[in-house]
């Protein structure tokens, strides 16, 4: 794991608050600050609190742990901070969390998250045998692509439906793929939540499996897994290529392997943070949606680099520090409903968070993964 001395940066934050906003300053765009509203809950507040803790001006507390882990690492702050160290902001929080882990100071929900992943390979402590129920025996056997589902798509009932749609699309397009028999967590959240040791173990084990099976290309519908495979696994010697499912689906459309019928909907798109701000993939999903006959595509006011996070990242889909009143998913689903009657996304966590928010707020909007709307277009 790379060396990074965040203690050399924390005092450089001016707490000016540019990082709270999108580029047009229209609304608060930091998900934890939008929910909690205290100055402690945005990146500047966290920087100052980390420094205060290091200087022994404040002691450790569960509340401080909650503040540190309520950051969904959406990177809005990185986009909008005006200082030269802006690129390192999220790294500061990740490495501060790593020190919390090292010193046994993480909140119990976070400890449970790590423990479940270490023992069961998923955050909920679900049985390993349940993980691949959706795959119906389509196991990897020297195929061109490994389809890696990730934890949320494998276990969450809503996200699983989207995963099945993707599988069906890939089969329709005659993509040569299979699923690893003993797929386990890829560890993206483990790393960004600061458990570097556990992440290294996960990454090495996964790589060993991939190498022994001869995996050269991976497709995943999970931007969090995409991020780990693309940005963290090379450090452990990974040489495979990874594609997000929006990249694959767009290339299938371009090569005319999927024929689309009409879908009558006014749709908008929610950019998952780990696809957009973390990895710069903004256009493929939009191009796919614009290819669907009958579908009217409309942007939400906050889109691409200015998209508002659903609040699920960095393990918050499990710890739920960003749930409840004024939770970012509730804010986002309202914004979507003011724009369109169909909200499309391309992340199992976003899908789960946003559909839950629509239900709990009783908001009349459909929430779908891009694979689902594409499959619908093919079947009509």
């Amino acid at each position, binding site marked *: 794991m790379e060396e990074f001395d965040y203690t050399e940066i924390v*005092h*450089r*934050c*001016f*707490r*000016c*608050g*540019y990082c*709270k*906003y999108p580029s*047009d*300053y*229209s*609304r608060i765009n930091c998900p934890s600050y939008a929910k*909690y*509203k*205290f*100055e*402690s809950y945005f990146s500047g*507040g966290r920087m*100052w*609190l980390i420094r*205060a803790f290091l200087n022994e*001006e*404040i*002691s450790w*507390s569960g*509340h*401080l742990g909650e*503040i540190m882990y309520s950051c969904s690492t959406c990177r809005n702050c990185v986009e909008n901070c*005006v*200082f*030269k*160290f802006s690129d390192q902001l999220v790294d500061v929080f990740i490495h501060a969390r790593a020190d919390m882990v090292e010193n046994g100071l993480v909140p119990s929900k976070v400890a449970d998250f790590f423990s479940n992943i270490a023992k069961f390979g998923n955050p909920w402590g679900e049985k390993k045998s349940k993980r691949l129920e959706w795959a119906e025996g389509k196991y990897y056997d020297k195929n061109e692509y490994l389809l890696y589902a990730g934890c949320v798509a494998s276990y969450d009932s809503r996200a699983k439906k989207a995963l099945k749609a993707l599988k069906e699309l890939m089969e329709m397009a005659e993509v040569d793929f299979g699923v690893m028999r003993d797929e386990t967590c890829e560890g993206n959240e483990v790393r960004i939540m600061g458990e570097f040791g556990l992440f290294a173990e996960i990454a090495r084990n996964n790589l060993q499996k991939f190498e022994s099976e001869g995996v050269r290309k991976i497709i995943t519908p999970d931007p969090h897994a995409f991020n780990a495979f693309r940005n963290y696994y090379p450090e452990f010697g990974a040489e495979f290529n990874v594609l997000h499912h929006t990249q694959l689906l767009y290339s299938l459309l371009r090569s005319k392997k999927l024929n689309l019928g009409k879908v009558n909907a006014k749709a908008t798109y929610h950019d998952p943070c780990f696809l957009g701000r973390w990895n710069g993939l903004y256009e493929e999903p939009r191009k796919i949606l614009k290819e669907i006959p009958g579908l009217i595509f409309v942007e939400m006011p906050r889109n691409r680099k200015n998209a508002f996070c659903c609040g699920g990242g960095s393990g918050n889909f499990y710890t739920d520090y960003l749930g409840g*009143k004024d939770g970012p998913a509730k804010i986002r689903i309202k914004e979507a409903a003011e724009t369109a009657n169909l909200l499309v996304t391309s992340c199992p966590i976003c899908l789960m968070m946003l559909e839950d928010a629509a239900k709990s707020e009783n908001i009349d909007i459909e929430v779908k993964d891009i694979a689902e709307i594409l499959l619908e277009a093919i079947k009509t």
Partner: protein
Amino acid sequence: MDGEMDDKTEDKMDNKMDIYKKLVEIVGEEYVSVNPEELYIYSSDPGTMEPCKPDYVVIPDNVEEIQKIVVLANRHKIPIVPMGGALSLSGLVRPLKGGIVLDMKRMNRIIEVNEKSRYAVIEAGVSEGELKAYLNKHHPNLRHSMPDAPPIATITANALIHGSGRLSQQYGFHSDMINGLEVVLPTGEICRVGSCSISPYWFTRAPLPELAGLFIGWFGATGIVTKLGIKLYPRQKLRDVMIFVTENPDYVADVIWRITQTEVTEDLTVWAQPRPEWAEGFQHTTVYLTANSEEEMELKKKIVKNAVREYITRKEGGFLMLTPAMKAMFLQEPMSQLVRFADVRKGGGFEYVGAILPVELFGDAYRKGLEIAERIDITYAFNIRVIGRAHCMMFAYAYPFNRADEEDVERARKALHETNKVVLEMGGIPWKAELPAQKLILERMDPTTKELMRKILQLLDPNNIMNPGNWEVE
């Protein structure tokens, strides 16, 4: 003895817990904090002033909640400090005597924009950035005067401390743009001043007796402003910038006089700083122009050039060539480059004395600033905004510091204090004065004026609960 102390401590704790519970009843549990983390964060702003911890941080949603909090605070004689963006940098929202910090930013509703009479009615937590974005979207022909503070700075707090911004050269301080106020008085009554006290329109303060002055410039010591009527202005289609450079600070007052005499400019600022190296020793008079057509813009540029032609002919001044990137930087509202000054010492800090001075003193003010910087061995940036057709200027003497180096912070404090003294000696007045500067101002103030201030504070705030310690006349 130990037992007595324990009992007293326990009584105090019980009382504190009772107050906490009452605050929770008023605003809800999620909007009250007594956690050490929030008390730490709300104890200071990004400037050099020493922290002062509050006992409670409360985020109210509406005026009725604030009224209840004020009544509670009066009953128990608990200080209250209303807070906007906490970006004055001079520690004005530090709770000098503890108590409740009221973070106003949850009250961020834009209540009305009257397009025809060109004003907006907003809650006190609406930020500069949010109103700008709202007007861009819904009223693209209107604008408000943006300061160069970060966009989270609140419009109300900025207007109440006599802030200035992009339209101040034309229309004066932001406090001059206030049409009306809704205020929770220190005794809990809700009061309106301006036309809104008798009319549904928040369109003017005249011709009534001037009551807004009871709340402007007082740093929250006379009440909590909850709504603000603020003037809006026409937005023209085009904006451009020109920078006129001189090497003799004694010329700048005349350059400003000539340019303001043309009546064609929007904003007019001057900056001087030792970095980048090419800028050292020069004064950069930055002229902002707006127009509705290219033709109008070209004409205005010609008028400005003609106004200072004599300096160009004498080879004592000239216009800087600006690249598109430089223009974009100068035209940004707010100008984020100014905040980056905090990283000059790689230490996340700067503070400035915003001296309100007659423009004719520019040369002296400039030289005295350089003397202080040299004597204290501190780097600097001077940023000056012309206010009201050169009726005065806000001369910001900004000093960066590394907050991780206490000696560096102390050096900045010393520079600020020296600057405050020099400003007063020149006949100027430090703007949004930090506590030590308030004391310097009061020392020089006419005794009868001070007595009037004391009487006003006593009359409005008999229990001395509103941001106590500020403007305290002994």
